[in-house]
Each structure stands twice: as C-alpha cells, then as structure tokens.
C-alpha cells in the first residue's frame, strides 16, 4: 500500500511550487501544445482538483480502515475496502507521476543553472536526454491515469445482438446492407468473435432486407456500440445503367444481451407458441415448420425465430432475442431517468443519427462524429485493421468525453459544497 499522507503533501507542495520553479507554462510538457481547451491532460486544473480530491478520499479511507471504531462493523469494512481497491492503483500512479514531475524540475534546474563550460556541456546533454525520458514516462503515466479514471461500463463485455436494416434507396440500399453485413462478419472473424445469424432476409439480387446476428467475444459491446446508427453510401449502384451516383442508407442497431444475472424471466410469464398443426398433431402430422414465437405476457413483447430446422434451436434463438428486447427497454428507461436527472442531452446518440459515409467516387469513408476520413473504401469494407482503427479512435473519444463529463459533475458538486 502506498503512503497516502506522502502523496497529499507532495501534491500540495507541487501546487505551491508551480509559480516558483517551473515557468508559467504547463507542467514540463512544453513539447506538447496542450491548452486547457484540449482539456484532458494533467495540466487541466479541474482534473488536478479532481485527482487531489480522490487522493484525499484515499487518505481518509486509510485512516478509517485502521480506526478501531470501524473494525467491528463488517459491512462498513467491506465497503471501505472495495473503494480502496478502486482508488489505490490510481493513487499509486499519481504518486509516480508526481515523483516524475519532481525529477523533471530538478533536471530543468540543472539545465538552466549550468554555465557554458565544455564539461558542463556534456552534463547538459546528458540532462537533456534524461529529460526526454522523463517526459515520455510522464506522458504514459498520464495516459494510464486517464484510462483508470474512465468508469468501466458493466456492459462492455456483454454479448450483443446486431441488427441490420436497409434504409432509403431501394435495391441499392439492400445491396449496401449486404456489404455492411459482410464487413461486420469479417470484423467478427478478425476479432475472433462468435458471429451467429439469427435472422437473414435476402432479396433476389443478393441484397439484404433485414438481418440480426448474435455476437459474443471480448469487448464486443464496447467496440460495436459505436457502430450503431445510420450508414450512408454514395456510389454508382450495380443496378444503375446510366452511371448516376446514388445515395442510400442502412441502419445498424447494437443491443447488449443481458447476462444471466441481469435479467431473469419467470417461465410462468412466457407463452411459447408454435404453428398450430391441423388435427391431432404429433405422429399424425408431417411438417417442416419449426418456427417458435415467444410472448412475454407482462410486457407484451414478442420474439420469434424460424431460422433453424429444429424447434429447440428456434426456441433458444427467440429467447435470446426476447431477453435482449426486454433488457434494452429497461436500460433505455434507466438512461432516460438518469438523463432527466442530469437535465442534459448527453448520452448515447440516437439510433437515427447519420454516423458515417462511404463515398466510393472519392474513395473515402468519413465518420461524422470524429470528423475523420479514411481512404480506400474497399479496404475498409474488408472489416480488418482499418475498421478497427476507426473504432478505437471512437472509443478514445468516448473515454475522453466520459472523463470530461465526470469532471463537470465534480466541479458542480464542489461549487455546491462551497
């Protein structure tokens, strides 16, 4: 366990020394032009304040842990310990970062103090080298601190259901939907995820009207949730004889599947239906129909599957789809109440938002949320590294946003206590 008192002291001393030792620009990161607008670096005052707040909390927790008054209270002990394990890695990294800053300052001092003799020149070069190393270390520590700050989403690793629906643009939209479907199928293979078709409705020309799949694997929801929304294509369709460029759309929905603990449905609330065979059923009938429909009586929600030749498999597919529907309506409600509490419109973007354009004429894919363009559309549609890169920049963006929001909330609460 680190020494919390030590950190707090250092933190304070650092604050005191800002004006004294280091020039008025931000902490030793002169090479980077970080301004407060570019918010998320250690130079951000509200981030600093927040981190200090956490360090104090950590200190307080340590004191309470050893306090004999609390020793008997098992519940409290447990709560304390949990929060402590959350904070400790963060506090340790902060301590390291602060140490690095001290080191940096010492080096800076050495450099600026050194007079111009030849021997000192050598020293100076060494010091400069050392300074670069220190800066690098500090930067990576900073990154680590930021990612530790990002709240972990419980649903990150959930299995998901992805739905693909053709939008405006007729046959061309359906062909584009098929292209997108294949891109994500390949991406799932690239990530070693399991990709199982639940529904798949095609058209004569090889287009896709609607499809849903179940995807499971590491970070499936974390990565794929950014793919939800409207995707737009601009190209000359295969079906177009006159060579005109068409604009068509398709929509992707990404729904986390509930884990077992998240949702339990009472079998009594479910009504399972199969197609009613005429007459007596059983041996009296030969049918290839194995479709299953499940109704959740309390919510009136329905899911069905006719994907498989076995009734049992159709039943389990329908069950997964039903659970996901119910779970997502619960999540939506929860999010809506949270949002109204915060009185802001931040949160997951609407499903109807246009998120990306695939422009074949200009051979680029543009993501409208990060304003980033990638060239080579065909390569992008292979669903490999290029898609992964774009997704990870979206993930980073989201993490930053989350931390920023957290800081805002922290500042609000600080103002209130004042």
């Amino acid at each position, binding site marked *: 366990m680190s020494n919390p008192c030590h950190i707090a002291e250092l933190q304070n001393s650092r604050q005191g020394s800002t004006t004294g030792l280091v020039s008025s620009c931000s902490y030793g990161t002169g090479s980077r032009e970080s301004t407060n607008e570019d918010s998320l670096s250690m130079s951000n005052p509200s981030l600093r304040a927040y981190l200090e707040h956490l360090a104090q909390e950590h200190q307080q927790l340590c004191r309470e842990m050893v306090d004999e008054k609390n020793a008997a209270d098992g519940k409290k002990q447990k709560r304390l310990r949990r929060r402590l394990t959350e904070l400790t890695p963060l506090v340790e990294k902060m301590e390291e970062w602060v140490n690095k800053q001290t080191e940096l300052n010492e080096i800076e001092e050495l450099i600026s103090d050194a007079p111009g003799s030849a021997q000192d020149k050598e020293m100076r070069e060494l010091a400069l080298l050392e300074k670069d190393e220190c800066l690098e270390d500090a930067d990576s520590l900073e990154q680590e601190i930021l990612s530790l700050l990002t709240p972990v989403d419980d649903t990150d690793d959930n299995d998901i259901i992805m739905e693909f629906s053709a939008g405006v643009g007729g046959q061309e939209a359906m*062909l584009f939907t*098929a292209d997108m479907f*294949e891109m994500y*199928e*390949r*991406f799932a*293979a*690239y990530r070693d995820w399991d990709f199982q*078709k639940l529904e*798949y*409705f*095609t058209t*004569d*020309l*090889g*287009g*896709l009207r609607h499809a849903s799949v179940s995807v499971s694997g590491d970070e499936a929801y974390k990565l794929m949730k950014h793919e939800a929304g409207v995707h737009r294509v601009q190209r000359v369709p295969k079906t177009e004889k006159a060579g005109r460029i068409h604009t068509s759309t398709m929509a992707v929905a990404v729904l986390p599947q509930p884990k077992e603990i998240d949702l339990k449905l009472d079998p009594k609330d479910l009504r*399972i*239906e*199969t197609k*009613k*065979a005429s007459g*007596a*059923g*059983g*041996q*009296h*009938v*030969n*049918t*290839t*129909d*194995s479709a299953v429909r499940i109704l959740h009586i309390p919510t009136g929600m329905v899911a069905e599957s006719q*994907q*498989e*030749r*076995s*009734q*049992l*498999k159709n039943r389990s597919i329908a069950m997964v789809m039903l659970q996901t529907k119910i779970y997502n309506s619960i999540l939506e409600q929860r999010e809506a109440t949270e949002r109204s509490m915060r009185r802001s419109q931040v949160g997951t973007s609407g499903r109807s938002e246009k998120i990306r354009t695939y422009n074949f004429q200009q051979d680029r894919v543009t993501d409208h949320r990060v304003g980033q363009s990638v060239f080579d559309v065909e390569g992008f549609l*292979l*669903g*490999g*590294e290029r898609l*992964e890169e774009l997704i990870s920049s979206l993930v980073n963006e989201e993490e930053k946003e989350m931390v920023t929001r957290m800081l805002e909330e922290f500042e609000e609460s600080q103002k209130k206590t004042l």
Partner: protein
Amino acid sequence: MAGPMKTSHKLFFPNFKRAILCIDFWTRSCSKSTFLNGQGYLRFEGGLSCCHGNASATKSMDCSVSKQTDSKNETLDIKIRNQPISRHFPWTSVRRTFSTSVTLQKDVEKCSASSNNFVETTPGPNGPTLFECNSPQAAVRWWSAVFSERGVPEAEVSAEFIVAHALGLKQLHELTSPVLARSLTQVELDIINRLCTKRMQRIPVQYIVGDWDFRDLTLEVRPPVFIPRPETEMLVDLILGHYSEDSKLHFLEIGCGSGAISLSLLSELLLARVTAVDCSEQAVQLTMENADRLGLQDRLTVHCAAVTSQLPKCLQGKSSSFDAIISNPPYIPTQDMEGLQPEIKLYEDAIALCGGPDGMDLIKDILRNTHLLLKPEGFIWLETDSRHPEAIQTWLDTNPGMGVELVGTYQDYHDRPRFTQLRYKNQPSQL
C-alpha cells in the same frame, strides 16, 4: 497480418461434412461385363456458411464405375478423381441419375440403398429451364407456384429446402449475397427439378433432402424410418429436466426409429448409457449409422427386436437394470391411419405409427413388462396421443397388477396432453 485472411482460410478450406453426389450413369455392355460410365458433380458443405466470394464449392469429376455381372454381391466401386469411394446400393437404383446426400468419412463412405424407396423419376418436362430460373430464388418461386397449384402442402418452404439442398446447404438463408446473386448451373437446376418432381409425389421434404435436425443434432432420415417430430424434442426436454447431468443412468428406449431420442440423451447426458430396441431392421441400421456419425456409438446398444406382451430375448433377464424407459410408441389408432397425409401414409413405416384399435397396443405392452426391466422407483416417459393419458389411467385402474402409477401428464405447445410420466413402485402383487 491482414485480418480478413483469417476468414478466407476457414471459408476456402472447409471440413467436408456433407456432400451431395450427383452422377449421371450410362451403361455399356461388352460380353461378360457391364461397364458403367458416369459423370457428375460433387458438392461439399463446409462447417461455415458455404462458399464465399469466388470460392466455388462445386468440384466437377469424372468417375468410372464397374460392376461384374457374375458377381452376386451388388457392389459398385465408384472412383472419383482417382479416389475410390465404395458405395453399396442395389443395381436397380442406378438406372438413370442418382443423387443423394452422402457423408464423407476419411474419403470412404458406406452408403446403403437410400433411394430404392423412391419412385424412379426423370427430370420431367415440367421442370423450368435455365432461362426461366436463373437464380436460386427464381427456382424457388417457380416450384412453389407449381406446388401450391397441385396442392402440395408447405409449398414455398418445400421449394426453399430443396433448392438449398441442391446448393449444398441446409437452408436458403445460409446463402451469402454473392451466391444468391449468381445464376444456377444446369446441373444444379437438374438436381432441383428432379428433387422437386419427387416432392410432387408427396415424398416428405425430410426424405428428399436426406437429413433433418432434432434438437442440436442433425440426423440422417430415410424412408421408411419414422421422421422425428418437433413435439418429441419436448419429451427430451422433460427427461433432461428430471435427471442431473452427473448421474450414471441407463435408459431403455423402445422404438428408437432414427435414434433421435436416444442420441439426444447421449449427447446431453455424458455419463448416460442407452439400450435401444426397434422392430424394424431399417430403423436399427439408421440409428447405428447416426450414432456412428455423431460419435455416440460407445454408450449405445441397439437391438432389432419387438416388444410384445412377451419380452424379446435381448431384454430378458434384465430386471432392475434400467433407470427409465422412454418411448415414442406408435400411437395412432387404426381408424385414423386412412386419413393421414399422403406424406405419412405413403412413405413412413406404418409399424412406427399404428398403435392398434385404441392406439395403445405398445403402450400396454410396455406397462406389462415394466416390472421385468425397471429399477424400483424408476420412471417411464411416454409421448402419446392427447387422448391417451386418461386412457392409461383407466387401464391401470382396471389392471392393478402392473405396479405402475401415473405421476404426471405434460402438454405440448398447443395445450394438448402429450407426455405421460409413470413410476414403477414395486414388484407387482400378481402376474
């Protein structure tokens, strides 16, 4: 490494699990020997969703077939691309064109006469031409129109299943867009037309495509062995819900048909053993083949024997051997038989369907023999007609010596009493 390569490997080199062999034969007689020449196509179905991109799953092949006329053993050796595949089927079925689904195992496959129950059909003049049916979906439309015109039930899905089968798939929606968009080849269309002509004769779709799914298993089905019904999946649910996975159980199945129940139990209860009997030799053969294919043969014993009021030899001296008896016995009353769909009446074995005047012949025989088979407190699980649970109770009341009591009836998804659970209490007081 570029990501998509990973996918293509899987797609280009599938593990061949299922293949459709279509060979056109013609004969040439020459003194003592008859030579058969063949040309055909072999289509593989891989573990993944069939072919992708420019990968074609169709391999063209030349095969030479020879048969000695003096040989009484009607065995044909077919060489496919110089790889001998020995297939055994009666001489008569090779008259014109032969198409079936075969399972490849280490390149050598034994295949019994699966097609001799089919009426020989020629790709009739009623099939569409390539011009009329250039895409898989067009073929589906063409044939589903013909089916519904001629009153063939489940017209559209029948056509879909057959077209999918001809393309080496289980279902049409497994097709990915590039394949969907391409045209059919003449050979594919020939297969489709031939198989659809069979459907016109009301042959069940399951027999035409040669395999069907039961729970998590894919089972081979062939005439006249009873085609597993979806209701029976629920019987297995009931049984699985009752026993724990780690108990060493020994089940007896009476009337195993294609092996659906026994093989499901074996695949889901890894410590269980099953003894299965069926009075039909074809059913016993099919159960064993399905077990072999699924790798479940080690814990399964199959006997060809009939349970009547007397136990067959293979089940004698087995008192207190079994934890449970399971059966989906023939339960259709004799007077209902005439009114069955042509699919059932013409092609499925009546022995597997007809349960005597009240549909309870075998049910009663099972109850009569229970004390010679079951451990005390062991259960009997039956799928029956919806009228039977009540009738069984009545029969037990009037025949109190069986030592069996009815503990529960369960309904199928249409609220029909379909399943009966009975318990063997003790030695019967009298015999």
